[in-house]
């Protein structure tokens, strides 16, 4: 399969094409990972040359469906239940409790949710606090395949890591031979929808949220695009709402009007009141 090797030149044109279409940014250091996924996808489609595949995407994909399929194959769906749990607990105990106390209900948006483990974890935490019925949880992702899997409520074995909180898992998850099932009540609490974070109109139509989760996602975008996305997320905040990013991420270097708050060793970015 010599022609499915991703040369630096091919990497440059493919990564530019992908970034233009869906914003995913690949650094030259990511070339091997990008190349492996691209080659696998192209081979599955029957191509024995990446350049042939590139021309198909560039010149013969009028509705962008092939590029969309490639983007779905490239997007990393690494997520699991109870990932970075402490910040989620803080979001519930501090921000959502407060929002509910003030307005009776709250809204949460999990942007780029992949197969849904994050918003489902949040739902479990809310259920523990008796607040599940007071919070609307919307979870979106670029990948229609990931959203379809999230809606099924069936997750692979890797969605539950060895250091998970046993009590929570026992209450809300069922372990089966093929993986993990979510209890129906928790599953019903999350609305899953496909959405591209570059789609301004679609985001504007979502309304305002008390909490926006965008964790371990912005690392896949260029700095320029991160600024634009954070701007969109900020506009989606209700007054005093917060954005939560991954524990190893920071918005401070992007020049934002959001106020950074530290709660319990986690950082949150609060919008204007």
């Amino acid at each position, binding site marked *: 399969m010599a022609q499915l090797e991703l040369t630096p030149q091919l990497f440059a044109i493919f990564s530019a094409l992908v970034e233009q279409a869906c914003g995913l940014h690949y650094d030259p250091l990511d070339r091997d990972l990008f190349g492996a996924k691209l080659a696998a996808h192209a081979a599955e489609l029957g191509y024995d040359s990446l350049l042939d595949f590139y021309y198909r995407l560039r010149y013969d994909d009028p509705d962008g469906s092939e590029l969309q399929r490639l983007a779905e194959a490239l997007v990393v769906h690494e997520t699991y239940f109870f990932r970075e749990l402490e910040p989620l607990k803080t979001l519930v105990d501090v921000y959502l409790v407060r929002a509910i106390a003030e307005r009776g209900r709250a809204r949460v948006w999990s942007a780029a949710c992949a197969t849904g483990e994050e918003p489902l974890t949040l739902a479990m935490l809310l259920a523990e606090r008796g607040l599940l019925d007071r919070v609307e949880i919307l979870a979106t992702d670029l990948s229609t395949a990931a959203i379809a899997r999230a809606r099924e409520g069936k997750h*692979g*074995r890797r969605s539950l890591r060895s250091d998970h909180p046993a009590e929570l898992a026992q209450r809300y998850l069922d372990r089966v031979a093929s993986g993990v099932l979510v209890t129906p009540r928790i599953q019903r609490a999350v609305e899953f929808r496909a959405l591209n974070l570059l789609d301004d109109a679609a985001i504007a139509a979502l309304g305002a949220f008390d909490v926006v989760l965008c964790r371990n996602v912005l690392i896949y975008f260029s700095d320029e695009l991160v600024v634009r996305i954070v701007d969109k997320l900020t506009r989606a905040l209700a007054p005093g709402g917060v954005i939560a990013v991954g524990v190893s991420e920071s918005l401070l270097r992007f020049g934002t009007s959001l106020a950074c708050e530290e709660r319990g060793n986690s950082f949150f970015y609060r*919008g204007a009141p």
Partner: protein
Amino acid sequence: MTVRPPYALTPAEQRRIERIDQLVVLGAEGVPELLGLAGDPSWTVRRAAVSALAALGDESIAAMCSWLATQRVSERAIAAVVDALATSVAPAVAAAAIELLANATPAVAADGAVILGRRRAIEGLPALVAALAHPDDNVAVAAIEALGSLGLAGAPAAATEPLIAVVEGRSFFRAFPALQVLARSGDPRAVKPIAALLGDPVFRLEAVRALGRTGSALAIPPLCSLLGDDRATIRVVATALADLVTRSEWSGAGTHVVRSLHTALASSLDALVAALPGADPSERAALIRVLGRTATATVLPVLAAALGDAAVRDVAADAIKALARGHEIALIGPLGDADPATLVEVVPLVTSLRDAPAIRGLLDDADPELRARACEALARIGDTSAVADLFDALADVNPRVALAAAGAIQSLHSAETAPRALAELATGTPAVRRQVLRIVAYLGLPDAFAAVRAATDDPDPKIAELAVAAIAAIADPRGDVVLATLARAPAAGLRAAVMRALAHRGSDAAGGALIAGVADDDAWVRYYAVQGLGRLGYGAATPQLLDRLADAAPFVRIAAIEALARLDTPAAWVALTSAVRSQDPDERRAALVGLGQHARPAALPILVAAARTGDLATRLIALSGLAVQTSDEVIHELATAARDVEPALRAAALSLLGERDEPAAIDALVEIAVTSELDDPVHRALSRASPARIAALADRLARAGEGDASVLAAALARMADPRATAALFDALAAGSPAVRRAVATSLAAMDATGASATVARLAAEDPDPEVRRVSAALVESD
């Protein structure tokens, strides 16, 4: 969120910058006003003033030095003037800075030191060494830091003992920077005085870090002596050891260092493992790196668990690979009931047949990603006994698994493959038959002809197209007839597959069918027909290919450009030089690829122009095209690209330069290497071993001085090639003291055969005292 507005100049700033442009034209007359603008409140205006003053060269030096000595109206103006002197185009700045260093005002003297350091002005060495004893700490510290900037590896050898004296003096403000500079110098004399500070609680931690920075095996015993301490210390030591390993790889001492570490750490593995919990990501990465280089299979579960930690995953994977490589150990077995998330990260690291049973067991795992990776692993380890299981996996519901299984079967050469493939072709499900056809196409199984022929009539278009590819791969003359017939099939997809197949098959009959395909109604049929004609070098098709340059489908036009490029005819040349000016970037790139395939001198200016501007892909293609040319201009262009701001372009240019053995290419690499960090890819490019490269480096080393001797010696040492090692020994006879010092250090670091005796001789007999002292330090530690 308020998006920060782009940085825009105010009208007043714009006017001041325009004034600066006018002042530059005035030359020396404009300098006083420029000096005034060096303190401007606007950063942008100050930068313009700095550039102007620097560009004026000799015309501004005296005024700037006088200003620094007598005016110094504000900190930002001082910083700007220092910047201007540091970046001035005039070589005379060094002498002026030496005078500043002698100024009675400490702040002025310190500025002089800073300027010398930033200019890497080796002529300032004596003055800087003298300044180490300055009564003012700020001046001494500035001198220390300047000495550290004078060469790639830090301070020159003549500064080593004065810096050691500073370290031994244990002045709080001076010893710390001196420690850092000494550590980076690569001078073996530095290790002992640094290690002596381990007993002083004030300097201990910095001494640990400094020992790591030496990259010297001499630093291993003092560092490892601390591994019985508390966990915080162990983590710092591990970080230093990881740094030491990295730096030793640059100097060519990597193998020797890892061997030494393996011995030194044998009794400390538990302590290193115990230090992992609670460590921060950089410390965890260091601990894992050290364990991977020096440990045994007993630490495998620890390393595997680290794969689940995103912050250290790559380091853990490298550590596991290094461990597996070094010890030929099974990876899966020792992990027992590992977390599925851990297993999925470990399986791609498997390289030993010892893991075969465990990997085969994973083919039934509930996780499709694990099943797919298991298929890939079986191919990688060469487990031919797994072929039957892999054929079963072709029926996997997950297409990634099925494809991985097909790929594995293709890789594993088993007697079982052909009969099983035939059986599956006859009775398998459509999904299985698709994969089997891929296998047949890869292996070209002659007995499969009839079954494959039948598959070309399959109602499933995917199967039919795969069957066409398989027919082409089977060495049966009936295949030509089949393909000729199918070239007229109703389905465009099938006709396109036939064109691809004809190109791969390359039979005598292919040309005619491909020419017919060039006129097909379907664009993709035309594309593959055109492509095939180019690949087969079918010159008779030139008129048809030229016609396709005006095809309605852009990808057909591009294929025509690519095909003509392969034909290398006068008509093709005209077409390429026209297409290189196309509005479509992909057409331009295809033309550049074509121009780059043949070393026509007339292509050189076109490729040079394309390499300098435009999008990254175009520039990369142009660079690759330049590489086949032999003109001296090519090396200049590659050298320029090797300093580009775009990392991918730099890497490509360095790689292309690294493949050339002309002295000019080596000079270009060395010029870049002497000003690059130790982890820059230029060093790898420089140390590609070949007889011509070794000879060229040896020749350059014989003439080397303080600035480049260590770079050249390290390049030869990194090659780990007997001829390169011999060249190092030879350099001792022809080279300067700087060369002899660098070579002695490299040979000792490599633990090369004969190094001990040679270094001992240098310690006793070399006419240069610095060479004797450095060699003595190496002998003492042997």
